[in-house]
């Protein structure tokens, strides 16, 4: 075999191999989300529930929250002292969020809350951080009121077409009243670039509640490998709010990474007695079977459905298909809500929309379809 023929053979092999295991890589990188080390400290957001970075002025730590409440482990070094005051900014936070130190190895630092500049932004000045100490900080609602019913909005698939006027959806959610936060199954952008995400984050300032999302196939794998994790955080994560577990799972490549399955197994086991809502971009099975807008393997689809069913998950939510579907995966009620404005499925009588989930401590009491006029 001569060299040109060998190259001819290698091209498709390279093409095929380059398509492999993006999802594994994302899962590995998820583990690095929420970790920050600088000259005077090391920070770790527990379970990676927020993206964390240090601003260029070295006096400010900025967080992008992916959960209504989370904890941060902080270790200060012995050589260099913390800036005084240290400014901590949390974006995408609940308006009622508060910062507190729940564990310290030294005297409790002082917290001074600064008036917020945006509905989902919280800022605090922290002073009196001691060198060579360990702290655990908590950001979230002080009283969780796990028995209280609440509402959550869900929608996905904004993409290029929907980005122009996504503020309409945000305004509608703001006006609906009593929505605690928005959850999404991804495809926020068209190609997942930093520019697109920055545009979206700018528009997100008009939404008065936090927006928690996993990634979609349009958000990852198109070039800027780390953009999603840099701006939003983990692709797969889990949090608990008022006795409801929310498990966001990265299925953007029509599969779930084996590592993520191992996380999911733990999340399912930990929340057997809770209401459990599962969120992923691509549904394991397409309700219109011949279309196959679903996992690439039916066996894997059944593997996932089996896990969810045996753990008695209460609800499964997906995007990817730009319409609205109510169906079931095994015995689990499932919904697709891809009404963010991305190139819509035609002839379905449904345009831009979002869902409102009415949840109490026992169950998802009801799901309402809200159309955007």
């Amino acid at each position, binding site marked *: 075999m001569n060299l040109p023929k060998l190259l001819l053979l290698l091209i498709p092999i390279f093409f095929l191999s380059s398509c492999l295991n993006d999802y594994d890589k994302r899962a590995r990188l998820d583990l690095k989300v929420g970790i920050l080390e600088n000259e005077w400290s090391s920070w770790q957001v527990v379970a990676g529930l927020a993206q964390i970075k240090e601003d260029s002025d070295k006096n400010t730590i900025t967080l992008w929250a992916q959960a209504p409440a989370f904890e941060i482990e902080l270790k200060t070094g012995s050589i260099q002292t913390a800036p005084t005051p240290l400014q901590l900014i949390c974006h995408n936070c609940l308006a009622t969020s508060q910062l507190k130190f729940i564990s310290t190895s030294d005297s409790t630092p002082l917290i001074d809350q600064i008036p917020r500049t945006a509905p989902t932004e919280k800022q605090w000045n922290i002073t009196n951080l001691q060198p060579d100490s360990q702290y655990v900080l908590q950001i979230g609602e002080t009283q969780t009121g796990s028995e209280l019913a609440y509402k959550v909005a869900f929608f996905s698939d904004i993409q290029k077409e929907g980005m122009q006027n996504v503020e309409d959806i945000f305004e509608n959610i703001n006006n609906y009243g009593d929505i605690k936060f928005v959850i999404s199954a991804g495809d926020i952008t068209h190609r997942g670039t930093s520019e697109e995400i920055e545009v979206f984050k700018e528009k997100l300032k008009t939404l008065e509640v936090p927006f928690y999302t996993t990634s979609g196939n349009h958000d990852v794998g198109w070039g800027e490998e780390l953009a999603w994790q840099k701006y939003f955080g983990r692709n797969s994560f889990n949090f608990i709010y008022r006795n409801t577990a929310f498990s966001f799972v990265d299925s953007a*490549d029509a599969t779930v990474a*084996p590592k993520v399955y191992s996380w999911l197994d733990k999340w399912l086991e930990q929340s057997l007695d809770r209401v459990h809502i599962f969120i992923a971009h691509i549904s394991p099975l397409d*309700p*219109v079977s*011949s279309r*196959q807008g679903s996992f690439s*393997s039916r066996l894997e689809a059944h593997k996932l459905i089996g896990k969810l069913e045996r753990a008695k998950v209460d609800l499964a939510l997906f995007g990817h298909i730009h319409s609205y579907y109510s169906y079931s995966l095994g015995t689990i009620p499932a919904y697709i809500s891809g009404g963010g404005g991305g190139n819509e499925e035609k002839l379905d009588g449904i345009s831009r929309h979002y869902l409102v989930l009415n949840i109490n401590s026992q169950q998802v009491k009801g799901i309402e379809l809200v159309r955007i006029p």
Partner: protein
Amino acid sequence: MIYYLGFVFLQLFLTPNSIVNTENSTQNSPHPKQISTDRVNSKPGSGEPSKSLENKSGKISKIANKSNWTGPASIVPGLLISGSGQYVAGNKKAAKKLFFLNAAGMGLFAVGAIPLALSNSSRHLSSIAIPLALAGGFTILNSQFLDSVASFYLTDFLGKFPGKNPWFAVESGYFHVDDPQFSHEHFQKSSVDFNYRVLSTKLTWWKDYAAGTFKARTKLGFTILGTNPSESASLYSYLRLSSAFSWHKIPDEELKILTMELFFEGRYDHGSLDKAFSGTFSEFQFGYALESVKYNSGETYFSQGNTKDFLIFSYGFGWYLGDSRNNHAEMIIYYNHRQDNYAGGMELKVSGDGVAGYAGLKTRYFFSRDWGVYSDLHYGGGLGIGFGVIYRRIK
């Protein structure tokens, strides 16, 4: 992609080093009768008669007027205008057939794909439009495969259907699955075939002894058109209505899957289309399957939410190699739209979801009247590699 892989494969392993100076290979060609008068009497493209039309033995040589341009012409402009290679080769009759085959494929593809694209895969159109788009797309590919294979003179090295199918065959071998989602990996795979008049039956089973995964599938086919499975024929084409029933158990994931299928399947010997294409054939399947899954031990099949249907569609382009019952082979490069196999479907960057099935290459080689070997390599989300021995009885 399949076309590209097929083309690469052809280029690497089947194209002779020089297609203009291999007189010996031509003399050994199984198709001396395929030399068309058009090819012999004129130099392609020039309109002039060839200077060397006969070899020393007095037989007409089809080497003499082979052109280096027919193969490339089947690619450019052949990828757009199918039949270009055969047109340059002077086989205008075959070129015309390929052109119309391609046009029919484009028509089918357009009827399926345009409504899909305009409606962004509407739920009301998908069940009809997707099979049409697939059928059209693979008809286009088939015409382009044929043009390339004939225009690169690969058919000179091909064989033909050996005349008859076995009435009984047993296959047994190893099947390896590379899929990190499941613990099963090493399967023993076996199958038994019976052919009787218009009926063909096949029982296949897969077993991974370590993981406990087991699958059994039985298929019954009824020949509607063409050659019966037990009949003698020089060209082997058929259309069957088949049904299949399978049961699948994956203990590690606590899954039990029951699948019922009803589909048409067929093979078309391209020698029927034109002698220039002798030695090649295409295969297809089209139908629907109903799948029911028990996710829990207490659950029953066909209860709420655990039963879904899916489309069955496959296409294959095949070659016969050798032409006697004692020494022949067939090789098929194929695409299967199903995703319920062990390798799953390919993960495509383009759509991001699992819209595609898997693609592969399967071969069967018989080195004696009764014995042979087989292999199957396919790529989806995972990889499947199988090989083993075949024992058969031919009446």
